[in-house]
């Protein structure tokens, strides 16, 4: 069904498009987001993050991450995170309600003072738990915020990819000037993304290092974001990945921050 749709849209855009490439750049990006950020109805994984500086010194972040989609790909999502490491933040929990068209709502439970606090941060610039990923890198950026264009089609490490250039429409709201993505023609997983700063020099590089199907969903098990200017990088490894567990809505509420539901500690 999906391939049929893709084939149809390729045929359509071949016929119609002014870009002269296979399909419209915006469609490619939309599909890529659906495959990369929205697979399944819900999702659970153990996430190990290594924040590594230029000299190889590491900081560890280990957490359990749950995600549930509300609506179609590209729509609202809720995330629940439970930290295991570093030791002094054990039991810290973090809830994110993500809306594609405005800043997310976030709550954090701080066990030392037994307090749930709402946190406001700028998705576009803030780092995700001190890593080289911004919140937006983790949860995505609304497709219509950028002008997308298909630069070319090529082979990336033996795979057929689209190379898409995305230029933010409101440049003052973000830190980068434009982004290039190497998107798999079959799975629509982004193999590589290059972020360029406003001076036009390369600033950050995302790579998907290991990809495998889990319950039929193509999943990026290992990924890296490297800040090429500072030499700092973040390596992320997923394990215990499970889709469609039937996570309940009540899990993604302020209440469960303090009183961890069994579904998570399990």
């Amino acid at each position, binding site marked *: 069904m999906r391939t049929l749709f893709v084939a149809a849209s390729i045929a359509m855009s071949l016929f119609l498009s002014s870009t002269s490439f296979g399909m419209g750049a915006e469609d490619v990006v939309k599909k890529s987001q659906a495959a990369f950020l929205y697979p399944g109805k819900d999702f659970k994984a153990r996430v190990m993050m290594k924040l590594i500086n230029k000299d190889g010194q590491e900081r560890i972040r280990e957490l359990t991450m749950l995600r549930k989609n509300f609506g179609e790909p590209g729509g609202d999502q809720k995330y629940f995170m439970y930290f295991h490491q570093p030791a002094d933040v054990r039991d810290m929990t973090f809830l994110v309600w993500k809306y594609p068209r405005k800043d997310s709502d976030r709550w954090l439970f701080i066990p030392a003072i037994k307090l749930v606090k709402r946190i*406001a941060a700028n998705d576009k610039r803030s780092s995700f738990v001190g890593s080289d990923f911004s919140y937006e890198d983790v949860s995505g950026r609304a497709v219509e915020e950028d002008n997308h264009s298909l630069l070319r089609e090529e082979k990336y490490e033996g795979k057929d990819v689209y190379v898409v250039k995305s230029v933010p429409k409101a440049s003052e709201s973000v830190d980068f000037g434009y982004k290039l993505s190497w998107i798999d023609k079959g799975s629509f997983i982004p193999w590589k993304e290059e972020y360029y700063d406003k001076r036009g020099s390369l600033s950050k590089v995302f790579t998907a290092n290991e990809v495998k199907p889990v319950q039929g969903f193509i999943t990026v098990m290992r990924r890296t974001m490297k800040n090429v200017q500072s030499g700092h990088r973040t390596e992320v490894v997923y394990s215990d990945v499970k889709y469609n567990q039937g996570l309940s809505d009540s899990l993604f509420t302020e209440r469960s921050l303090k009183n961890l539901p069994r579904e998570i500690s399990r």
Partner: protein
Amino acid sequence: MKKFSLVEFSVDHPKLVVFLTIFVTVLFMTQFTKIKTDTNPKNMLPATSDVRVWNDEVDKTFGLYEDTIVLGVVNDKGILNPGTLEKIRRITDDILAIKGVAARDVSSFPTITNVTADAGTLRVAPLMTQTPKNEAEITALRKQLFESPLFINRIISPDGKTTAIYAPLEKGANGKEIADKIREIAKREKGDEKYYIAGDPVARDTFGAEMFKLMAIFAPIAGCVMLLVRYLMFRDLFLSVTLMMDAMISIVWSMGLLIGLGFPVHIMTSMAPVFLMAIATDSIHIFNEFYFRYREKKDKRTAIIETMQAVGRPVRYTALATAAGFAVLLFMNIIPVKVFGGVVVFGTLSLRLLSFSFIPAMFTFVKDEKISRIAEAEDVGLNGTSRFLRKLAGFGTHHPKSTVLVGFALLLIALIGISRITVNNNMVEWFKKGSEVRVADREINKSLGGTSLGYVVGISKEDDFVKNPETMRYLEGLQRHLEKLPVVGKTFSVADYVKRINRVLHDDDPRYDVIPDSKDAVGQYLFLFSMSAKPSDLDNVVDSSFKKANIWVQLKTWDAKAMETVIRAVDDYKKAHPIAMELKPAGIAYFNMIWNHEVLWDMVKGFILALIAVLLILALDFRSIKWAVIGYMPLLFTIVLIYGVIGFVGKDFDMPISVLSCLSLGMAVDFAIHFVSRFRQRMAATPDEDVSEALLWTAARPGKGIMRNAILFAASFAVMLFAPLTPYITVGAFIVTMMLLSSLMTIIYLPALITLTQRWLIKGGTK
């Protein structure tokens, strides 16, 4: 007597000698195309020196930058208005786009991380994401600025009239070039705001660049002044040009050698040409004597050879003394100083070789009639200068006791002055008071925390040690202690973030503006902060294992002394409050302190070595310790008097002065060598003449050469008094004074001393 035959050979084959000289010069000149320059004064200390290795390590651990440029923006009506804020936003954006600026870590209103509480919500975000448009937004911004100790004195002055944009530089970026670009950006903005650009890289790289420029301007001007003064002295263009060529050739040889060997031309070596030009003036003694001899002999060849016989020895030994004075630099620790010493030694020796070959050869080309015309004027009895010098020397000879007493009185007063000298160095003060660099520094330091940055790094042996509430409180206590120092404008550390978060988490309740009681709370606060802030915010103040903490100390002055007081205060605090943490200074302010210290003491060491070397050479030349001591006196007096004045005037004993003292020795002693040598020659040649008559003759005839030499020397260095950088003015003033003083000392004081001690001297010495 090998040298001797060189003179005869040169007189007999002048064309060959001149051709060979020019040929060798051209060979050296071919090396000039390979020139490499190094304008960074920091390179006085090699990259492998302890302080640079340590600073690099600290920079690495905390993700810091070696150099930061500070752009101060001042609006007397206050900067918190939509117009000024919009300009700040625009300028920040443009600065972010400059290559070489570490854009990710620029601190300014639109980029600096802000932690606030807003209706029960904790907000971690850049302070100003959009320019406020109305009064309400301005008020909100004002509140945030003034309630966070992280901002006050850093990006906002307490009176709200000044802000600063801090632009850290990537490694290897040129501070002056980036500063120039920032200047251009600021220039585009119109309105009431004033812009000031400061920071160590601005001062340092501007100084380095200016220094090169000045050398390229001043060396030729000094050369022209010398040419002119010489022409006025001898009225012979050909011979004046010869003297000039003598200097030029030695400069080409030594700089050619330097470049050929692959050394970069450092700011220190860029001064070598001017020094060589000055040293070359010594050959004036040859000219001086030549005209006297010609008058007596009327034969060019004999006059040349006899001249060289008479002045050969003092010329050789003054060269040796000068060379020795510079050669001690070869034993110093600082490489550019060594290289400089080597270049000048080589140049001085080349000059002497030329004095015995090229100069005699050139004499043969001058027409006889011309020489006799000039020589007519050179009569000891008739010539005004000579008569004046005779009178001067007569004062010393006839009133030896009072002369020596006055001398001693001056010496005592000078010693009091010396005791008042303070050792310090301040790079910003190398620029004149009204210069852009200095004005900018003054303006920014007046209202903000300070343009000079030092660090105090706490190093423990235990992971997460910094997260202990005790450690946090310790850092805080140390900060408050340091902030009591008048030179410290602002400090900040990880403790400031923890306190800020504690307060914000508790609904901005000021009672929570303290370090929390549990280690877990500290850890969680920092984690929370790192969840949203820029990675560098935390990296700059703690290492990844939380073993080390870094306190930023902003200083309001570039005085090397300032960092010393900080280090002392840290030590005092540590003594009073022991903790299992080592506290070590770092940062550019610390580097400047060490740099200043090393160069300065290296120079003082060199100075002492040079004093000894010069005394030895005098003893060797005169073959008598007694004469050496006597000949040493004018030099000693000159130096002591100059330092006495420096002490009284209150000028710091800084790096330029220390470099100079070392260099001046070998040059200031020249006159005494000429005087004593020629006096003793005269005594030997005319045994019947009494001592005072011999002294007066010496003052009138070789003394004229001394006076000419001093004036020539002083004239060429006087040019430097008009330089825009204070170290040049210092060098100029120092050398002019030294030349005039030491020549006067030689003409007046030396005869008085010799008259008083003649029994002791002559009995045990010459005969």
